[in-house]
């Protein structure tokens, strides 16, 4: 069945409609006094690709064991930062209806006091599928004085959403 063409305006509109509620979803942690929240950084390119970072791309990309708490910060000093790169369209050839889908994401939760972090990642075309599954989880500690995270192993997991990560933090740590 031929797929209908999607105007760039429609794509941008749908991407915007998806990205902004992600910040809304974090407010219950702040209004209940369980966290503070830096504003999210949202941008939509001329090609209709949307990106959201908590708090910013620069902060997310330089995460390391010595990073100061930022993003969604909990009273015990633990914190969550994340990003999603999304677009609106046909996810694959079998898809009949256009939808929002994530091209990449990373949800990074860090506990400096416990020397521990976990990060759910999704990105295409890096490494071997056996050691670098499309959807994977890093969960590891670090030794005192370490300046970077030990990356492996990457545990294969299902696709996950921000709400799932928030729930995991809520039931485990709050």
């Amino acid at each position: 069945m031929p797929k209908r063409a999607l105007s760039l305006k429609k794509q941008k509109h749908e991407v915007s409609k998806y990205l902004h509620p992600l910040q809304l979803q974090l407010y219950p942690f702040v209004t209940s006094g369980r966290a503070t929240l830096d504003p999210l950084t949202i941008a939509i390119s001329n090609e209709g690709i949307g990106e959201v970072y908590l708090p910013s791309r620069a902060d997310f990309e330089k995460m390391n064991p010595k990073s100061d708490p930022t993003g969604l910060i909990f009273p015990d000093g633990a914190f969550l930062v994340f990003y999603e790169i999304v677009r609106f369209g046909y996810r694959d050839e079998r898809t009949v209806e256009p939808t929002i889908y994530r091209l990449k994401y990373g949800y990074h939760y860090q506990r400096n006091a416990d020397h521990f972090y976990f990060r759910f990642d999704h990105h295409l075309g890096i490494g071997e599928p056996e050691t670098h599954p499309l959807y994977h989880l890093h969960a590891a500690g670090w030794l005192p004085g370490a300046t970077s995270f030990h990356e492996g192993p990457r545990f294969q997991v299902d696709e996950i959403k921000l709400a799932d990560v928030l729930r995991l933090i809520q039931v485990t740590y709050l």
Partner: protein
Amino acid sequence: MKKLVFPFVEIEVPDDFPDGFDLEATFNYGMEHPEVTKRVNREYNKAYRKWMKNKRNKCAQTSLESEKAEARSQ
């Protein structure tokens, strides 16, 4: 109208805005009401920046005063 009460600002939301930790419901509400979502985020971001600026100014003032006090005591 209901209010979202943050430590540094209160933002009005419609009465049907989801309560508590129903994260999926909050997200879906945001998708269905983009104009409300954008307004709430805009007000939050503005108030947050103002709050941070005041906090930084206060910190700078406190450290300046303690520097002056230290200089006086010497």
